């Protein structure tokens, strides 16, 4: 594991014109959660053109399959078609871990999330992040024990005006 540089991952996506929405724990961080995450989760738009751009970004980021016992990940070939055939990709890149999830729990995917996503300017990159309500909705549907504390924080942030 090298540096975790999530903005550099997002910068590569933006520079290559990939349509996506940031979701999951990293979206929670953008909304103000102090609970750390080790990866950037995104939901890509699923058109062939977009997935071709995404595939090029994955090459640029030297993306490999993330799995236990393989610190550098496993090499894999990919293109638009192969990316679309698997619903979740857990990857390691030269800037940190990147997860691609086409239909996050409790959502209907990119169009569903993009409808009320926000365009936000981080210190080094502009990105599209899921609405806090959708981050909460997805984590609630996933029902994972590890999300429970984060969910309590996110609900509080929402109560405080998001």
């Amino acid at each position: 594991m090298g540096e975790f540089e999530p903005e550099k991952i997002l910068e590569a996506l933006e520079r290559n014109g990939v349509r996506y929405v940031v979701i999951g724990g990293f979206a929670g961080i953008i909304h103000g959660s102090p609970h750390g995450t080790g990866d950037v989760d995104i939901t890509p738009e699923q058109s062939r053109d977009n997935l071709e751009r995404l595939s090029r970004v994955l090459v640029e980021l030297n993306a490999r399959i993330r799995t236990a016992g393989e610190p550098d990940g496993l090499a894999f070939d990919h293109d638009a078609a192969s990316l679309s055939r698997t619903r979740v990709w857990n990857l390691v890149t030269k800037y940190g871990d990147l997860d691609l999830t086409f239909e996050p729990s409790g959502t209907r995917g990119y169009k569903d999330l993009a409808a009320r996503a926000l365009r936000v300017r981080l210190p080094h990159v502009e990105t599209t992040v899921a609405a806090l309500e959708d981050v909460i909705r997805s984590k609630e549907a996933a029902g994972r024990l590890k999300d429970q504390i984060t969910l309590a924080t996110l609900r509080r942030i929402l109560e405080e005006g998001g």
Partner: protein
Amino acid sequence: MRGAQFVREARHRAGLSQAELAARAGTTQSAIARVESGTEAPTLERVVELVRASGFDLQFRLVPLEEAEWAQVEALLRLTPAERVDRFEKVLELSSAGRRAVKEARRG
């Protein structure tokens, strides 16, 4: 936790010596010691039996294998404590910046 660790942890929580647990389970102190040290690999049934003799129970359920998540733990364990703290500080900085950015986006 592995079987031996469950047995040892249950005995500790119950405040029992190995000899006391052995008496409850109808075995010898040396047999308990072999299980707890890992010298002898107990069956699942044996682990449950010894845990119950300590006044606890084990519950099992199937959950999805989280290979990718464990890979992250392995990677974090390879970092020094200072490097882990540095990563966390960066996350906190992004959290503050993100919150400001979201508020600006909503205003805009």
